[in-house]
Structures are given as C-alpha cells and as structure tokens.
C-alpha cells in the first residue's frame, strides 16, 4: 500500500512546506487591514531560506504562520503533507514541540533558569528521563560551543552567547524545521557571524530546514535562497551560490 504512494508523490518529495492561497489580516478598530494576500509557495526540505522585506511587509507574520504560532484567515499550510491550519490549538502546541525549533531576536531565554535548564526546557514536554534530558541539553550546548557555560544564568552571558543558548534550545528536540525571527538583529557583527555560521552548519551537516526572517542583507546572504516580501506580496526566489 505504501509503495504506490511514494511513487505518486516522488515529484514533490523534496517539498517540506507548501503554502496555498494563504491570507492574513489584522482587525484594527472595526476594519481589517490585510497583511498577506493570497500567498502560495513551497519550501524545500533541507533548505535555508531567508525572508526579506521592509518593516510592516508581513514577513514576521508569514514566519509565525509557518511555525504554527498564528492562524491564517484563508488558505492551507501543509508541512510534510499535514495541513497545520486545521489543527486545534493544543494539537498545534504538540506539533510545535515535536517539529519546530525557535530562534528569536531577543533570545527570549528564561532569566531565572541556567543555560542548561533553558535548553532542557523543551525536553520536559517529551517523555524523557532526567538523565537523558541532561545529556541531550549538554550535547546541544557543546554543538553551539558553550559546553563550558552550562551553569551560567542568561544575565551572565553576552548577547551572542545568549543567542547561541537559544539556538541550542531550538535544536535540542531535533526538529525538522528551525524558524528564526531577526536572529542577528540585536547582535554585534562578530556574534552575528558566529550565530549564522552555526545555523549554516545545522543546515548543511544536519539537514535542518531553516526559515529566517531578516532585514539585514549580509545575514540573508548566509542562506541558500532569498525571497522578498513587499506589501503582502512575494517576489521571485533568488538562489544563492555558496562556495
């Protein structure tokens, strides 16, 4: 029974996320202001895509929809063939816990938890032993080069280090999709380079699909492809060649 199916979808096998006719608006004082209108595009498996556009272009809204943080007014968003616009809120929470890792502009770490505990946090949603959780969180922190900072509180870390903890937190559950909203927006040049390098490695070596929103051209150039969003409409995808 499975064999004919695989064959039938062979052509679309490398598409991870498929958006079809997605629209989204916000209600302000009785009237709806459209943010996204009729967006359709695909994101390939193991792709590193940068979404660019000026403020208010709707790029963060689009990212939130893909990550299952917000719901679309119309259209479908299929991730691995599953339409996440149809999931209930609590199913969506479970889906996010299983499939998506988040990286935010202001890191959004819990200030009262240590680096290790912050990374461990998403694992508490899975049925894992305490020991297992510790080991995985350690591994993730080592992966971002912070194996020696596990006991530090966020306030004892630099901005770049905090963002690397956030990246470790995003990948510790081994999600297929990483979403990053202006991950370098609050970092100096060198820290930004470091964070982007880690993301590139996650994409290339571990095959993570990454969708990154940024308005920084230099950050976007670390991605494999760039799409521009302006006034709710999407431009053509530009593929970048990396050495």
């Amino acid at each position, binding site marked *: 029974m499975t064999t004919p199916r695989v064959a039938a979808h062979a052509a679309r096998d490398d598409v991870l996320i498929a958006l079809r006719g997605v629209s989204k608006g916000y209600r302000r004082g009785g009237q709806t202001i459209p943010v996204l209108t009729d967006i359709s595009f695909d994101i390939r498996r193991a792709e590193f895509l940068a979404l660019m556009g000026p403020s208010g272009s709707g790029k963060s809204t689009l990212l939130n929809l893909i990550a299952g943080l917000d719901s679309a007014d119309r259209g479908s968003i299929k991730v691995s063939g599953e339409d996440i616009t149809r999931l209930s809120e609590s199913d969506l929470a479970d889906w996010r816990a299983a499939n*998506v890792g988040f990286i935010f502009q202001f890191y959004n770490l819990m200030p009262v938890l240590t680096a290790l505990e912050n990374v461990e946090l998403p694992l508490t949603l899975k049925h894992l032993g305490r020991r297992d959780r510790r080991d995985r969180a350690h591994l993730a922190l080592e992966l971002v080069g912070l194996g020696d900072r596990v006991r530090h509180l966020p306030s004892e870390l630099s901005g770049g280090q905090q963002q690397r903890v956030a990246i470790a937190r995003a990948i510790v559950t081994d999600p297929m999709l990483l979403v990053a909203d202006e991950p370098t927006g609050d970092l100096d040049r060198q820290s930004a380079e470091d964070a982007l390098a880690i993301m590139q490695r996650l994409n290339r070596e571990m095959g993570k699909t990454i969708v990154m929103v940024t308005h920084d051209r230099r950050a976007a150039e670390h991605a494999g492809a760039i799409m521009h969003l302006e006034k709710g409409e999407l431009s053509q995808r530009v593929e970048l060649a990396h050495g």
Partner: protein
Amino acid sequence: MPLLLAYSLRNLRVRKLTTLLTAGGMALVVFVFAAVLMLDSGLKQTLVATGDDTNVIFVRRSAEVEIQSILDRAQARIIESQPEVMIGNDGAPVVSKELVVLIALPKRGSTQVSNLLVRGVGREALAVRPRVRIVEGRMFRPGASEIVIGGALAGRFEGVALGSSIHFAQRDWQIVGRFDAGGSGFDSEIWGDSEQLMQAFRRDAFSSVVVRLADRARFDALKTRLEADPRMTVEAKPERIFYEEQSRLLSGFIRIIGLALSLMFSLGAVFGATITMYAAVASRQREIGALRALGFRRASILWAFLAEALLLGFTGWAVGLSLASLMTLVRVTTLNWTSLSELAFSFVLTPAIVLQSLLFALAMGFLGGFLPAVRAARLKIVDALRAA
C-alpha cells in the same frame, strides 16, 4: 513538571522584595486567623477539660451557672442517696455538695480587681475529681478556716500565695495548699470546706451537687427520675456538657469576630497577591510567548503562574503560623461572661488549626493568582513575543 516548578520558585526568589512584602501581608492574615482559632481552642480545651464524663452536676432548674443556683439540704440528700451514685472505699457515696461564690480580689501590681471563684467542696471532692491533685502543701482540714488555691492563681492576685491568708466574709482564711487541675477551669479557683464557707456567707443552701456515677450509662435513668420527682427543682447535666456550655458565649464571640476579621483582612492580602502576579505576568510576557512557542500548552502556563501564587501563599502560611505558634507562650486571663469569674487559658495549636490555616493561605494565593494566571494563559503567542 519540576523544571517549570523551579521556574516559578526562582522567579519568586529573584523578586525578593516583592515576594517578601506580598507573603508578609499574607503572613499577618494567617497570624490573625490562626491566633483566633488557637485562642478559641484554648478556651474550649480549658473548659471542656474541667468537666468529667463520669460526673453529673445538679443545679437548680434554669440556672446556667453555679452562682445562680440554690439547692437546699433536703434536695442534696436525695441526690446523694440515689442508687446510680458510686460508693467509695469507705462506704460513703462519691459526692461533692458545693457552694460557689465570687469574690473580688485586687490583681497583683494593679489597682484593678477581678472576680475569683471560691468553691466550697465536700470531703469527697478529690474522689469526685481524680484529676485534681495537691502539688504543694496539703488539703484544707474540714471544719477549719483553710483554703487551697488553683495552680493558675499563683502570682496573679495580691496576697494569694501558699502560707499567707486572705480576708473575706469576716474571716481570715489560711492558704495551706496549692492544687493542680491539669490546666482546667478549676486551676483558676479557690477551694475550701463547703460547711465553713456556708457559715461564713450565712447561707444554708448549696449551689450545686456533683456526683460520680458507678456506671456512665445510667445517667439518663438518674436524670429522668430526679427531674420528674415533685420534691426536686433540679436539672441534671453531664459535667462535661455543663462546662462546655459555659464556653459558648465567649467562644462564639471570639470565633465570629475573629473569622469575620480574617476574611476582611484576607481581601487586602488577596488584592496584594493579585497586583504582584499581574505585574509578574506583565513583565514576563516574552518569556510566556517563548514557552508557548516551544510547545507548552496554555494549561502549563496557567499552572506555572498559579504555582507561583500558591507558593506565595505557602510562604505566608509558614511565616504566619510560626509567628502564631509563639502565641502558645502567652497566657490569657479574661472574665468568662457566662460564669462571671476570671478564667486563665492559653493559645493552643492543634493539628486541625495547622491544616485549616494552610488551606486558608493557599486559598488566598489561589484567589490572588487566578486572574493573572488566566491572563498569562490567554496571551496570544504572537503578541506576547512582540511585547517589549
């Protein structure tokens, strides 16, 4: 979810001043709440301990306390000759025919006078009340102007001490002994020979008759027969019930006033907790957004904040109850409105009070944390993440 609990706990620790002030307010409410219950249980324990289950007290019908009651000798004789009454080793019935009067004595170190209960008792008094023991000196001699004093009196009244004498009813009464009545109401009394006291007070009738039953189960038979006897104008009550009733007025007052106050005060503390928790939610919106993005459900967020509020309540309870437990060192003397005599009792901490005050404190925490926790849980992820 211990990590999330650690999150709640550490957030409290980080905001030390706020936590301290909020929990401090709750602690004071818990203190008042627990102290009231402790005072009430102390009062009850003292008066309930005064009565003995095996004893029956006879007073004149409708008299609520002994000083209101008059029983003549004929009636007293009928009571002591009933078959239900226990017979002692010496062949005499175990009965105490008593006279109760109040005298006003000056309190030590003040110009204030207080009412002391003087009880004239029969020869069998100690057999009727086995828990009363002479601990210093000796028992009064029948036929002498001698008295013994209760343990709670020592040091409270001017001139009331072993070896000295006090003057009332035109006689000097020598204090020859001190007795211990196990923390009961008798400890606030003076005992003497009932015949001597009746002579001094020019009375030829008793106030009450207390009998010890051979068999507790035969109380109803005794009561029914004597109360129906046309020669008698008496009312029989188990001694324990009789004294318990004396605690009702004061105890009711303490409870009603105390609990009404605790409830009023708790409103203030709940508002305080609400303010604190709303501020906690407001300042941690981005954290809440991140937790939700990571896949934590609304219910988990709700619980994390509720847990924080409950922990506040718990802290308030621990501090408040510790303060209240210091009150067990305090001894209270006040006029019992029913018997009109002064009664000494302590604050008594019982396991029930520990539990009740804990539930009370947690309820305050819950009420204070509920609305803020709901707000935290209902935040939209997108808005929460965007919050400054």
